[in-house]
């Protein structure tokens, strides 16, 4: 089969992401698809449920833009950089509208995705029991988590968490072929299971390579292409987050977002400039270089620390 799935972010989002969907946004602080996220915001998608073990500013931007109704996650924050203000405004004050969060833990979100990827209805975990996450549910009620005494006789009670099978997932990766066999390296985060749990996947990549390049190192493939609906070529698609081997994290830009989003007005100004005011990732990058200079842009580029290759011979 040789069927090209290459398209623009604009085409992929308009074709495959519908209002009201449950969407897994893949990766963990690394290779997060900001290109797809920004396109969802520009196309004004509504009533989405987003899920991932942990979320950063990409979720915050979608919340501020009014795309999100519900979040299934363990974490919405930006680590040492500080809080995410749209998330806090929505949770504390209902701005721009009230959102709900179903709170799990990082590992239990992974366990739910693993169950989703393997076709298991639920999975027992050692986490969560004894915590107030067992007592409070936002919309799942009794189906958020249950306690079950080990039927195999250990005498221990475990929390059972339900499988998560999102309608669609999207993620950024280093490379893919045109069929969507995509490869990642560095911090895999919630991949591969977050994407394997989804019914279909949009992947944005630094480079599109031939099927032959993928086949020379198949252990690195995250997901076979048959589950991939669209492949988007998007250099720096994860900016301001990093992409191992391509570019580093842009701490100044993350701090800028967090500073400016402290007020609704500041947030709107940032978004008008960097999301609504640009047509696509190419324009975004051009704007970045125009604003901060080529020297700053080049300083983000990764050093060469290539691995040795292995022999797949037989």
């Amino acid at each position, binding site marked *: 089969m040789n069927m090209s799935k290459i398209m623009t972010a604009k085409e992929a989002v308009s074709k495959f992401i519908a209002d009201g969907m449950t969407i897994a946004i893949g990766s*963990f602080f690394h290779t997060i698809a900001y290109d797809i996220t920004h396109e969802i915001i520009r196309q004004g998608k509504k009533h989405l449920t987003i899920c991932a073990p942990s979320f950063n500013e990409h979720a915050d931007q979608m919340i501020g833009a009014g795309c999100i109704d519900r979040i299934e996650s363990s974490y919405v924050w930006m680590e040492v950089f500080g809080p995410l203000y749209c998330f806090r405004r929505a949770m504390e004050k209902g701005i721009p509208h009230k959102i709900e969060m179903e709170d799990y833990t990082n590992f239990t979100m992974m366990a739910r995705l693993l169950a989703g990827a393997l076709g298991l209805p639920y999975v027992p975990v050692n986490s969560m029991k004894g915590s107030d996450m067992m007592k409070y549910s936002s919309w799942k009620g009794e189906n958020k988590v249950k306690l079950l005494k080990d039927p195999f006789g250990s005498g221990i009670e475990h929390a059972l968490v339900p499988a998560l099978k999102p309608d669609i997932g999207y993620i950024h990766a280093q490379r893919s072929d045109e069929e969507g066999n995509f490869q990642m390296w560095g*911090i895999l985060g919630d991949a591969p299971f977050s994407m394997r749990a989804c019914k279909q996947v949009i992947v944005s990549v630094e480079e599109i390579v031939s099927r032959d390049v993928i086949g020379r190192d198949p252990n690195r493939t995250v997901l076979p292409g048959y589950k991939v609906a669209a492949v988007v070529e998007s250099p720096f698609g994860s900016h301001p987050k*990093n992409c191992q081997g391509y570019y580093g994290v842009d701490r100044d830009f993350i701090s800028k977002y967090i500073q400016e989003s402290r007020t609704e007005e500041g947030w709107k100004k940032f978004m008008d400039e960097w999301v609504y005011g640009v047509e696509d990732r190419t324009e975004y990058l051009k704007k970045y270089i125009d604003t901060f200079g080529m020297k700053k842009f080049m300083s983000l580029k990764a050093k060469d620390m290539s691995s040795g290759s292995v022999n797949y011979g037989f």
Partner: protein
Amino acid sequence: MTDKYNDFTLQELMAVAAAREIKDGEKVIIGTGLPLLGAFLAQKTHAPNMMAIYESGAIDCKPMVTPFSVADAVLVPGAAMQGGLIEGLGIVHNGELDVGFLGGAQIDKYGNLNAHVIGDYYKPEVRFAGSGGSNDIGSGCKRTIVMMLHQKKRFPEKVDFVTTPGYLGGGRQREKMGFPGGGPSVVVSTLGILRFHRDTKEMYLESYHPGVTIEQIKANTGWDLLVADNVKETERPSSELIRILREELDPTGVFLKKK
């Protein structure tokens, strides 16, 4: 003798106190900020065989520069293994790790931590990040080291929301739950070092930081804090440890904000 490392800041004292909690050869899951400096300080001094693990799936990291984040790209080259969350937290969940670092918005008398909300869960006055890996680390690691800003509102008798169980209601309550991990062993706060009573599991003051009084600590704690009979001043860091922190681990002052 004039030594520019004789002086130390509160943050440096806390990083050194955290480092002292780690034994050589232990497997430690590390967060960012002070825990990270504490753990790497231990590795550079008395615990060269400590294994540094991050929830992002970086295992046995030997970073060339101090990482800024639990998912920093510098963790990857040189690691013994790089996976994802299922690898990083899977070994925590399986009870294989010795030490985990925790923090939060509140901690109570029995070491329960809150990282979710101040006020009502459904109508929070302040909403925080949520558990992230905190609950997993608290449930799975053999022991945990908690680092806290010591203020009355952050040390209530009972937390507003239990994100990560400590000893729950005290006594044997935690033990009965059958967690793989054993619970918090120490709280390194901005005012002192606190531990948990062997039987009741109630938090008590072990030592007060230089310049801090016991009265001050009690006034900043939301219940009648127990004080050890042999309470003493927290051991001051040696100038060599301060030198390593400043010159080797945080030369640009990212974590130990330079005044």
